[in-house]
Each structure stands twice: as structure tokens, then as C-alpha cells.
């Protein structure tokens, strides 16, 4: 019963990106992974900062770093806990972020995701 409740709670947390829970419980197995996400579509000044801010404010993400923004492809390195956030979720978060050029436009596309060994 307790486990079921915990799992349910985790699901809810994962479901709503801006979770409203005061505290979240932990899922059964947690792994720390580091990925490099190659993103295209960054052009103006604030793009990288917008994306970083979006990611950093997610549950389960421990670190976000990136080299300089380039329009063709920018590498963003993310360290995260699998029990709290999935790679798919990270992808969709990036692609569903509004750019800073035009309202409602979502210019960022994930080109590739590479797994690195956690440090």
C-alpha cells in the first residue's frame, strides 16, 4: 500500500512539470545519468538562458551546463535522476519551450542525445 502510494505520488510529480506538492516521495530505483543534448534553433541572446532556466527548475535535474549558443547545434549537458525525470521528458521540455523571438513560437529541436558516464 505504502509503495503504491509512493509510486502514484511520483507519477503525479512527473506529470506536472510545475509540481505543486510540498514534498515528493522517491521511486524504487534511482539512477544518475549524464546526457549531452544537441539542440538546434538557438539564435537570440536569451535563448540559452531560457532553456537552462527551464531545465534547472525541474525536479531531479542536478546540473545543467552548455557551451556557447550556436544556431545549428548547441550542446547542453544535463545530469539527472532517472526516478524523477526521463530523457523523453527532457526532450519534450526543450522542444516545448517558447523562444524569445516571437510569442508562441517553439524554435528548439533536439537533434541528438548522447549518454555520458556519470561523474
Amino acid at each position, binding site marked *: 500500500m505504502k509503495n503504491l502510494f509512493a509510486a502514484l505520488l511520483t507519477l503525479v510529480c512527473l506529470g506536472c512539470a510545475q*509540481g505543486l506538492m510540498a*514534498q515528493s516521495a522517491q521511486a524504487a530505483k534511482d539512477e544518475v545519468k549524464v546526457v549531452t543534448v544537441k539542440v538546434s534553433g538557438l539564435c*537570440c*541572446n536569451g535563448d540559452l538562458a531560457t532553456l537552462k532556466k527551464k531545465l*534547472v*527548475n525541474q525536479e531531479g535535474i*542536478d546540473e*545543467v551546463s552548455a557551451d556557447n549558443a550556436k544556431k545549428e547545434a548547441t550542446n547542453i549537458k544535463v545530469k539527472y535522476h532517472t526516478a524523477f525525470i526521463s530523457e523523453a521528458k527532457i526532450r519534450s521540455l526543450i522542444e516545448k519551450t517558447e523562444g*524569445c*523571438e516571437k510569442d508562441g513560437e517553439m524554435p528548439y529541436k533536439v537533434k541528438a542525445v548522447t549518454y555520458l558516464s556519470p561523474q
Partner: protein
Amino acid sequence: MRFLFLLASLLPCILFAQSIKGKIFGQTPSGNEILPGATLTLLGTSQGAVSNEFGVFEINVPATIEHRLIVSFLGFKTDTIAVGERTYFSVYLSPDPKNLEAATVVAQQGGSFISALQGIKVEVINQKELTKAACCDLAGCFETQGTIQAQTTNLLLNSKELRILGLSGTYNQILVDGMPMILGGSFTYGISSIPGTLVDQIFVAKGANSVLQGFESISGQVNVVLKEPNPDKEKILLNAYLNSFGEKHLNANFSTTLGKNWKSLTSLHLVQPASKRDRDEDTFLDLPLLTRLAIYQKFTLGDEQTAGWSSKIGLRYLDEKRIGGQSNFDAKRDQGSNQVYGQVVQYQQPELYTKTAYRFNPQSKISLIASAFQHQQSAWFGVTQYTSKHLNAYANLQYEQLWAQKHDLKFGFSYRHLNLAESIRFSNNDLERTFAGDYLRQERTPGMFAENVFNFDQFSIIAGARVDHHRQFGWQFVPRLTLRYNAGDATVIRANVGRGLRSVNLFAENISLLISSRDIQFAEKLDLEKAWNTGINLTHTASGENLVATFSTDLYHTRFQNQIFPDYDSDPSLAIIQNFRGTSISNGFQFDAKFVVAKIFEAKFAYNFLDVYRRTGERKIQLPFNAKHRLMAAFSYEPKNKQWHADVNMHWMGPQRLPDTRSLPQSFQQPEFSRAFSVANVQFTKVWKKLDLYGGCENLFDFRQIRPIINWQNPFGDYFDTAFAWGPTRGRELYVGVRMRL
């Protein structure tokens, strides 16, 4: 046996084997945001941690017991979390509206100096605000707020002071990275020597504040926080500026990492003089020829919030030359001449400061703050030669302890050393002035201080006191008290009362004495200047969906017990220097309103009423060059894509009382009051990814005070006076600049 010993010594490690990790979020109107720098304490122990830049913390806990974590962050409600079996979890803190304003300050300020100020109303001017005007130097950084007024002290050399509550710049304390670096010899030109591109943030607090930085700051405190090396964000910053007078400014900042823990910032600042201009044809230049070179180097190690050592070291070398006066004045040929009037100031100023701290745990740390500078000046003001050498040193050792969860105690010792040698000569003494000679002031001032912050739910108290031993004046006691009360969720009321003291560096801090043709009479031995300051202020924030409005109003009352100012009124040919123990008062009222609409449009309004006067007998004498009424309005617009911004600010100055000139010959007499006038400044900035291009206009309506110098026709005569500037004299100024960030 040895094995057993080994085992025993390992036991604590085994007990503390478990590490728990997590992430701390704060619930804000725009969603959950991480809280870097949040404090965690393991209930019932002294174990603690602080969350890092990603809001993530890690803490080692004894594996055996059931543990609870107390998580706190200013502006949010402190929460106690039962950890249970978890090794990784998220914590969400809900906002504490009563504390939100203080939180903004702390979050932006970082470091410990700030936490002492949380009960005090602090205005923050950040980098964003600084890009709204050209802000070539510190004196130009206050265009968009009403608290500080930059006032010209010497028209010919364009030296300025920052006035708070209508009181001279000497009565407030200007700190650079928390250190007293602008005083004595460095006072007159100090605030102009810091370029806007090196400033990270400026914190302005009115009234008598914390005792930690000294016994001064009667009318307020301005802390200028210089940029820290940040190679991840701003590796290189280049700024070039040119105005329509031909003055050129160049700035370059380089940030880099040195080894594993150290970071370095190198900054260069160059100013090349304008071309000679005399629009009002009074034979005097409208603005001085300014040449400046400043090299600044900062090293940082670690940060103060994490356990262990952290350090900041700043080094600066400043070389400046200002030439003003008649347009045909040649500094090399004519200095000291009694045929062509000119002023030349040249100074060199090496500076060094450090703040080194060791943090034992999240609750306690010890820090050493030390600074030194030497200011060496050689100057000519007409036929008056002035040379000075000021060696200043300051040290402050302080210990901070958070205790019983509601208290923050700081105490320590300070020592200051001042050695100011000045010399005055006249190349020609037709005016028969008597104050030529050598002057030496020496101060060795040891002191101790303590301050405790009491944090209760609805209110907080900051109580502090210090005692200092002055060589000449003996032991002096300075108490200060600040109260904060949260009246409802969006209203904060604060009150403060405190005493302030200062010793006078007469010539170094009163340039008007040297540039006037008056003789100086020292009537008696000068005592310390002493004053009590009391203030009350109220801040209210109202926020709707697309509008955030902040209203703030304050009242401050300063009463001097002893004040020293040159008395120009008793005799037109004399400046009499003596202690004034009569009634000298500053009453200040300020109202501020700020509206932010949909995060793209911002409007700010400020009104100041400053009644500054002294009484001699039955007469109430208003402080000259102080506008009783002052208005400021600032508007800025920045579209959502942040690709450009437009900024406008306007100032209206009411009439100012001018010094009494009734004893002067008819033709030199000045009106009793100056005209009211207004000045508007506009700027447009285009922002690209790595490049900003900005251009603007200061004094758009080209308001000028024409021929501000009295008896300009005869600069070596009796009534020549350059201290009559009450308004802008240089007229409209266009400028363009480019900023590059890599």
C-alpha cells in the same frame, strides 16, 4: 589493540556514512524555481549544508537515527522535513510574503554583509538598471532613483559628491565591496573614478545603519559592489563611449579561471579628454579636460556560503589628471600663473583590499576585512598650490554566529589608520590670505562592535553598538537600532534610530575652500561631528496579473550635536571654520511609486521634500544649493524579445537657496533663490547576441545656467567665485557607445 583503536577512530565515519541529497525549490508566481544558497540544518545537531547554484544539496547524516531537516531560505517559510528512508528528494518551500522584499535584496546581494541589512530598507541598483543610462562613472549611476543626488562641488573640475537627505556627501559612507575606500584624499574625485562597467550592483540604505562598517554613515550608506570574475557568463566585456564634447571612454574586463579554485578579473579603464568648449563665452571651459587610467584586478577563491576558506582580493591603480579654467590656460606653462586662471589636479592612487573568511559550518564563520590606499595629489587652483598625501589603512576582524534559529550575532574588532599630510602655498598673495602652511592629521582608531539580528515572526530587530577610541577625542559610543514590522502580507514598516560620528578632513573633503578667493580663519579646535538620525519608512506592494506596483514612503530626521562647515555668511572675504553646536537639522520626506506593466513597461516616480537648515539666534538659514522640492520620473520599455530597450528619465529641481551675496558689490550680487529647472535624459539601446549599441542624449532640452562664475572677468580679484553652480552648465550632450560581450 591498535586495530581496535583504528576501528574506534573510524566509528564516527561509519556512523555518518549515509549521504542524502536533494533539491530545493521555492514556489513563486511564475512557477517553481530553484533556491541556490538555501540553508539546511539537521535537527538536533550542528550538521548543515547549503544548496548549490542548481539548488542541490548534499549532507552526510548518521545512518542510525531518524532524521529531520530544517530547510530555510529568506522570503520563504522555513520547513521541517522528515527524511525517512529517502536518499534523494525535492523540497518545496512556500513563499512568506512578509519577508519577500528582504529576500530580493539578499538573493541579489549574497554574502554576509547583506544579512545585517535585511531589517533595513535597501534600494538595489543592478546592472540592468545601469544600462539605462550612459553611466560612465558612479556619479552618473543614480539617474533613475530619488534617494541620491549627485551634486557638483567644483564646477571647473567637475568634481561631484553624492548627497543623501540633502546632506553633503561627507555625511554618508561610500563603501567599495564593503570597504571604506572613498574618504579623505580620495573623497573629492573618488566617486568619479569607478566606471559603470565595473559595477555589479549598488546598495543604498538611508539613515544610520549597521555599526559593522564604522561609526560614520550619518545620512546613509552606499555600497558599490564591483563585478566578480565570472568566466562562464562574461569572459570579456568591451565598452567604448564617445560624447558630443569629444570625451572618450574605453573599458575592458577580462575574466578567467586560475587553477582549480581561483578566479581572476582584470579591468582597464581609460578616459581621453574632450575638446575645449566655451559656449557661454565667459572665457572659462564648460567642462574640464579629463584624462584617467585605472587598472583593477580582482581574485576570488571559493564562496562564503560553503564551508572552508573563501577570499577576495582587489587591487587598483588609479592615475588621473583634470584641467579646467580659462580656455587659453596651458597646464604646463600657466600653472600657478596670476595672468591666466586655471586649475590642474593630478593624482595617483594605489589601492589594495581583501576579504578573507573561514566558514566553520552554515551557522558560523570568521572573516577578516582589510584595506589600504595611498592618495598622492598635486594640484593648482589659480595661484593656490595644494599637495597632499593620504595613507589610509583599515582592518576589521569579525565573527558571525547564527544561534537559536532566530538570531544572527556578529561581533569583532576594527582598527583604522589615517595619515594625511597636506601643504598649501600661494604663488602670489595679493589677496593676503593667511592659510599657507603644512597640515598633518593622524588618526589611530581601534574599536570594537557587536550587532545582533533578532528574527521573530512578524518583526525583527537589529541592535548594534560600537565603541572606538579616537586619539584626540577619547572613547566614543555609537548605538544603533532598527525595527521591522510586517503589517499584513504586502506592507512592511521599518524604523531606525542611531548615532553617527565623523572627524573632518578639512581641505581634502571641502574643495570649495581651496577654489574660493576667501581667506580661511580657524576659530577654534575642531571637535568630532556628531549627529542623531531617526527614520521611519513604509513599503507596500500590490500585484495583479499584469501589474506590480510598489509604493514606498519615508521620513528621516537628522539632528546634529556638532557640525563643522565653512561659514561664508559672516564675512564676505572669510570662511570661518568652527564647531557649530546650535540647531542644525535635516528633515527629509520621500515618496516613491513604481509600476511594472506586463514585464515590459516600467514607470517610476519619486518626490523629495528636503528641509535642511540651521538656526542662528532667531534666524532659520536654509542650506544653500539644496532644492526643497524635487521630482523624478523614469520610464523604460523593453519588448518581450529583449532585442532593444528605450529609457527616459526626467528631473525637476525646485528653487535652491543661494549663499547670501548682499555684502558683495551690486554687480556681483546673486538672487536669493535659483530658478527651478528640469532636465530630461533619453537613451536607446539595441541588443544583439554579443553586442549592445547604445545612444542617447543627456539634458535633452539643453537647459544651462549661463555664466555660473561670479566675477569671471577678473579671476584673480576679490569676489571671484566658482562655487555658484546650481544647475547644469554644459548643456545638451549626445553620446554613442558600444558594448561587446564574449
